[in-house]
């Protein structure tokens, strides 16, 4: 119920086109990179998926994060802009379910953006490395992993967006968080657990134990952020 209403709300905000555009743009990055410098990459050792991810994932993850942040801003801005939020408070709807509805919509769009990107990576492996369908399983596994570790980032962007009425504060805070994520060292496990830094991790070529650690951390962080959002709603009610 809540989810369907959220879908209707974003209809004219450009939410879905923005995600699709970001997906197409970031899927084009490995393709363009390979087209320009295919000699360097095809001659280097290692599995094609590994090479492609190491060469392009930082930029692609950055675009994913920016798409998530901008869309989180817009999805809550449409509530705050015309004081729609106050009307929502009068309805027999819990604000927390609205948050979850928005999250489900956002998660579906994250799957869409990752699907477009995996198509881009698949095209590169097939066209330049000629690996055909045997890498399909690895590519799918990589993107399933990226999907799982993207959840805390999406949730925390939505959490920040729900906390501030002004869109630019949300955008500013989220941008500073992304900036911080780019400044953190990638090889430090504890520091990489920062929600905005996790999506920069790569599946191929990482130890199994680290991957399990990140998946577990992703679940724990997601639950903590959802609890924090429900607490925020409760506390804010006291002061309004």
């Amino acid at each position, binding site marked *: 119920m809540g989810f369907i209403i959220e879908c209707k709300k974003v209809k004219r*905000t*450009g*939410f879905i086109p*923005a995600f699709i*555009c*970001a997906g197409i*743009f970031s899927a084009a990055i490995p393709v363009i990179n390979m087209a320009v410098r295919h000699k360097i990459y095809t001659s280097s050792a290692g599995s094609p998926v590994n090479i492609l991810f190491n060469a392009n994932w930082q*930029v692609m993850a*950055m*675009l994913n994060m*920016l*798409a998530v942040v*901008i*869309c989180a*801003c*817009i999805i809550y*801005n449409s509530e705050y*802009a015309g004081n729609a939020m106050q009307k929502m408070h009068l309805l027999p709807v819990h604000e927390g379910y609205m948050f979850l509805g928005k999250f489900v919509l956002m998660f579906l769009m994250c799957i869409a953006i990752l699907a477009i990107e995996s198509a881009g990576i698949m095209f590169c492996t097939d066209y330049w490395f000629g690996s055909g369908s045997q890498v399909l399983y690895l590519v799918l596994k990589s993107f399933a992993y990226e999907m799982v570790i993207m959840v805390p980032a999406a949730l925390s962007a939505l959490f920040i967006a729900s906390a501030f009425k*002004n*869109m*630019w*504060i949300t*955008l*500013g*805070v989220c*941008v*500073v968080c*992304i*900036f*911080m994520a*780019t*400044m*953190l060292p990638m090889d430090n496990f504890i520091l990489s657990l920062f929600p905005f830094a996790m999506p920069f991790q790569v599946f191929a070529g990482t130890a199994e134990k680290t991957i399990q650690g990140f998946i577990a951390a992703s679940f724990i962080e997601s639950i903590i952020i959802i609890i924090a959002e429900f607490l925020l709603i409760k506390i804010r009610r006291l002061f309004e």
Partner: protein
Amino acid sequence: MSFISILSIEFKKIRRSKILPLFLLASVILWLPSVFNADINFKMQAEGILPEYNFLIQGFLGISWFMLPASIIVSTVLINQTERSNNGILKMLALPVSTTWLCLAKFLVLLVLAAAQVIIMAGVYYIGAAIASNIQDYNFILPPLFVFKESALLFISAIPMAALFWLLSICIKTPVFSIGSGFIMVVPSVLVINTKAWFAYPVSYPFYVITTEYSKLASGIDTTKIQLIPWIPVAFLITVFCIVLSCMYFGRSYR
């Protein structure tokens, strides 16, 4: 109304925006890792750069490729959204005030915010350098004139980019696309500075300028001399074009 009074009103509008603490936060995040890892500045023999210069330039590189463009985009959102809430912009456009002056005043506010970001960053640099000097027992603090020169270069090279983002925020009314197109331009700027056509891409100017400054200070890297022709004329034309167009389109979507 005179331009000065319009400008002072524009500054009043953003008075309670709390954007300066946000800039401060970004600057602290920028310099904190450099202070903790100050010892790596001593291992730059291959590049042939003095530790104190490396300390400064690495931080400037960090801010010029992502944080400065991003904070200019955030500032455009701030300037536009504070007016859009409660339809303040409609009331402004109904007053007998020239929309061109209004647009120019807002653009000047944007430039002042960008300058504030650079000044705050330079201020935090001095605190960071002082702490790093204490920890490493080596003087990291550079003369103010040099730091001022680098900061001024960073700011001036960001003006065409600010004009471009300002144009985007005025011409594209849907906030998703005006912010999104700005960010999409930021991401490939790292790739663009390696091409010959970098001078046609305003978003890459600050990063390019700081990279050339780095190569000037490091004796081990080939000095890339910045070619003022065709850069300066092109940058000037882009800036003027963006400002004129944004003044023409300002408020048009509300009429």
